[in-house]
């Protein structure tokens, strides 16, 4: 085992060294050819890259460094634009619809829906580019990702190599858990949280016991056809029936619990209109929230918040369309430099120097190396605190302080152990019911957040919401989805 670790370390170091050498050569080559053909002195292409996450102060500084590196390698510079978590979906919608210049953009099942937007023609089809410039990607990324992110047989984006199954966890602010000696061992269901929330509510008036923003949805064992739209199929695969999630018993009881918690003051009163919980995480005034995890995520979170975070599972680890399409980088259909963008994506997913710079910033400013594998965040890392999952191949990353050397092996193990959702690989095509989808979406805006955060009483609002969804044409959407699903099941038998 330890041998393996060492070898991995060496390999990484070697790759790093090699790439430095290569980049040096690249530079020379450029200069040499520049005088000859004139191609080397060509103005570098600027790639505009939209990604998800709270905008960071030092993005431009880091991207200037990144650009130096990429200019040498592929003669391109990078301009990164970040859009905050809660706004990403809507803002990207508008930016893409209005043809804002962009080359690379983050998309996923949850944030700026990958499948729907691929069908709408927002992304460039990448099959050819991938063959031409993306060999490195094909070699490194788990094939489960590349095949799972095909829409109608084509790739429209490069998935990030990371954890494959989706595992929901409860996260706890360990400072508070320790202070009140809370017992988190038996926690799994939503209901089991109650005693903890109650204690904190009584003892810490300033703390929000249950942190969440308006995008929160209680976990129920269903797989959604389109993320955050109410059509779903039961995860245990017992029936392949598309249902309105709001009409399921599981969701109904979860919403009742949420409302109970809300009325008890465990949830922030403005949760249904809050776009971000970053105020809570920076100030540490929260007890628990729910998040998607990956192996050793606690270390990641603790490092970025500056205080310890622990977790307990809230679901099984399941490979769903959502998780397979959990982080994808697509090339905009309006990109003026699709080839360069592909070259960049290939580099990002294969080159540890670039990947780590994008992830952790500048060595000596934002982080320092402890050894070949591990890094430690410096104070300035607060100005460049990036989500790792959304920025490409995770398996190239340095390890955090305290991470075991075999972190990425743990990932591989985690990935191989995930259970597949019964509808993994089925992508709903909503073009036939576009009008109804728009209407359903509008209804969703009206009811979703306040129901899911427990702000309103499901006894009165759930029937109302179901009724409104029906009026908007929900049944037609479900019928269409069901017939597509039946056809898919028949074809994949």
């Amino acid at each position, binding site marked *: 085992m330890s041998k393996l670790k060492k070898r991995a370390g060496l390999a990484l170091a070697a790759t790093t060294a090699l790439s430095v050498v290569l980049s040096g050569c690249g530079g020379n080559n450029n200069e040499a050819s520049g005088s000859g053909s004139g191609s080397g002195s060509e103005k570098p292409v600027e790639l505009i890259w939209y990604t998800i996450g709270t905008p960071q102060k030092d993005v431009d500084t880091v991207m200037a460094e990144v650009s130096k590196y990429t200019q040498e390698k592929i003669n391109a510079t990078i301009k990164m634009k970040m859009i905050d978590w809660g706004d990403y979906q*809507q803002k990207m*919608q*508008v930016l*893409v*619809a*209005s*043809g804002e210049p962009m080359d690379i953009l983050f998309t996923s099942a949850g944030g700026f829906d990958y499948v729907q937007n691929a069908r*709408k*023609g927002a992304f460039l089809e990448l099959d050819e580019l991938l063959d031409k410039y993306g060999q490195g990607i094909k070699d490194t990324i788990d094939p489960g990702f590349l095949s799972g992110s095909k829409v109608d047989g084509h790739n429209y984006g490069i998935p990030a190599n990371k954890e494959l199954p989706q595992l929901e966890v409860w996260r706890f602010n360990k400072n508070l858990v320790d202070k009140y000696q809370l017992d988190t061992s038996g926690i799994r269901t939503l209901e089991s949280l109650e005693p903890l929330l109650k204690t904190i509510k009584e003892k810490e008036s300033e703390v929000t016991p249950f942190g969440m923003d308006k995008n929160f949805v209680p976990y129920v064992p269903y797989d959604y056809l389109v993320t955050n739209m109410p059509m779903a199929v039961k995860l245990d695969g017992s029936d392949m029936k598309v249902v309105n999630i709001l009409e399921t018993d599981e969701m109904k009881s979860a919403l009742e619990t949420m409302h109970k918690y809300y009325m008890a*003051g465990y949830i922030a*009163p*403005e949760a*249904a*209109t809050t776009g971000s919980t970053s105020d809570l995480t920076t100030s540490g005034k929260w007890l628990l929230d729910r998040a998607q995890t990956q192996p050793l995520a606690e270390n990641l979170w603790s490092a970025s918040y500056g205080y310890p975070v622990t977790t307990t599972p809230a679901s099984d680890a399941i490979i769903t369309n959502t998780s397979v399409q959990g982080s994808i980088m697509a090339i905009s*259909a*309006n990109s003026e430099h699709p080839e360069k963008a592909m070259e960049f994506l290939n580099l990002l997913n294969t080159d540890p120097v670039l990947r780590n710079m994008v992830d952790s910033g500048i060595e000596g400013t934002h982080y320092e190396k402890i050894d070949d594998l591990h890094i430690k965040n410096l104070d300035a890392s607060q100005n460049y605190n990036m989500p790792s999952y959304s920025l490409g191949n995770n398996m190239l990353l340095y390890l955090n302080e305290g991470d075991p050397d075999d972190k990425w092996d743990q990932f591989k193990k985690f990935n191989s152990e995930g259970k597949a959702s019964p509808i993994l690989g089925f992508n709903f095509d909503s073009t036939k019911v576009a*009008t*109804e989808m*728009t*209407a359903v*979406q*509008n*209804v969703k*805006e*009206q*009811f*979703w*957040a*306040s129901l899911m955060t427990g*702000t*309103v009483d499901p006894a009165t*609002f759930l029937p109302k919401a179901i009724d409104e969804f029906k*009026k*908007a*044409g929900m049944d037609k959407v479900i019928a269409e989805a069901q017939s597509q699903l039946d056809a898919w099941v028949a074809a994949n038998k």
Partner: protein
Amino acid sequence: MAGSFFRRFNRNKVLLLMVLPGALWFLFFSYLPLFGTIAAFKEYRFRGGFWNSLINSKFVGWDNFKFLFNTDAAFTITRNTLLYNIAFIFLGLVFSVGLAILLSELVNKRLAKLYQTSMFLPYFLSWVIVGYFAFSFLSMDRGLLNHILGYFGVDSMQWYSDPTYWPYILIFVYLWKSIGYSSVVYLASILGIDRSLYEAAMIDGASKLQQVRNITLPLLKPIIIIMTLLAVGKIFYADFGLFYNVPRDSGTLYSVTNVIDTYVYRGFKVTGEIGMSTAAGLYQSVVGFVLVMVSNFAVRKLDKDSALF
């Protein structure tokens, strides 16, 4: 023919130059968007610039209007827009005329000036700030209102998720922000009324109330009618800021806070469908146009000078 055209053009060269910046502005910010409304009949997809996208996007006829009229969305937002505006016009009129009369009757003119200055304040604040003000009263756990209700033993209200009271809240906030200012128009007219009319009435033994009813109001009537008709012309357009900022964009309140303007904006934000959002906007423009024409026609009948054209 051509010669006379050029001569005419030449003679007006300087004046034409003067209208040029403004005319260009109208072209870009009014007439091109007008042309852009053909997106309402297209499945708009951005490809290679504004003109290309507009012309090459797939033509879909009335499809984009379906989502509006297949659901009760069109009904709800039209109802909200109209009812709120009617309430604003009617109550705004009653309160600002009342306030103007009240201020004109105050004995101490200095105090009256001070009152007026205070009542003016809300007019100068943006809707964002008014939204914050409202929040300091309506916040469920911190707001002043729930605190006061608590004194009387009433349970805390979830103001931002209970639509019941929002029609009243919105009307109140609107009046609060606007009547201090709009009363000025009426006050100016009242002060312009010939005092001898009142003196004559006094001699005849008319009470103050009778004077208001028989002198002040009849003399205010023309301006009241004009102001009202002008407002009626804009009845299909809502104050976006009021309906967007004050309810904090809370979904549960949409049934009573969504007006056409906010609906168009949100539709665009949520679905990113330029075609469908433009369709909703076009519906507003067309009906709005008819209403402006009708009200202007009425104004014209009454007082030619006050008409828009």
